[in-house]
């Protein structure tokens, strides 16, 4: 089981039929808690290769302030554009990982490196969407986090 958290940017771009476009960016935070099973190959005390299968709970920040009526250029007023702020919902994902572990000395400390791909989605509801006034999943954006990392660990016993 593991936990990770990343802060990054979410870009939203709308291109209208009259050729005008608006791009807005907001912070997007993703927390991920995962659990799964890991299969390990390698001699005790030596380099070990492992693969894992996992399920993950994806936690997003609650809301993305992407496009409000106040931000819209005056040229767009003639086509009644939709404000595009999103209420983001948490979701589940699943995936696979691969890694190696190398012992550092004989005290149980080890170095680890690995990569992990999780397939998931970011469900979101467009706030005050005139095309779909019901709360729900107006946008179900793919979100397939791929992480490549280095770390250290400590093994007790075994």
């Amino acid at each position, binding site marked *: 089981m593991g936990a990770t*958290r990343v802060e990054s940017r979410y870009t939203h771009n709308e291109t209208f039929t009259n050729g005008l476009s608006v791009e807005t960016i907001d912070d*997007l935070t993703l927390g991920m808690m995962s659990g799964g099973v890991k299969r390990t190959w390698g001699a005790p005390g030596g380099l070990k290769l492992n693969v894992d299968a996992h399920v993950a709970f994806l936690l997003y920040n609650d809301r993305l302030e992407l496009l409000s009526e106040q931000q819209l250029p005056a040229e767009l007023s003639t086509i009644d554009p939709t404000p595009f702020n999103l209420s983001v919902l948490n979701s589940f994902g699943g995936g696979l990982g691969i890694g190696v572990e190398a012992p550092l000395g004989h005290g149980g400390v080890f170095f680890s490196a690995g990569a992990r791909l999780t397939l998931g989605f970011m469900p979101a509801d467009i706030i005050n969407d005139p*095309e779909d006034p019901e709360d729900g999943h107006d946008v179900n954006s*793919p*979100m397939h986090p791929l*992480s490549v990392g280095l*770390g250290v660990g*400590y*093994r007790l016993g075994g």
Partner: protein
Amino acid sequence: MLAATAAVDVAAQNAASTERSWSFGGGMSWLERNGEKRLVRGDRKVVTTNATGGLAPFLEASFKLNDR
């Protein structure tokens, strides 16, 4: 953090009597979200979204059931 501390305590007890063991660790990874999407809303406009990647610290704990 609380969970990790509890895991260490349990591991210390298990390690003395069985081959099963806990390990825990942490590190830093680069996380790419792969979250780009393009969609057409109604007949009026095209919307594209994209989420960038970033550095992500991680914590991990595992429990070894057997030698495999």
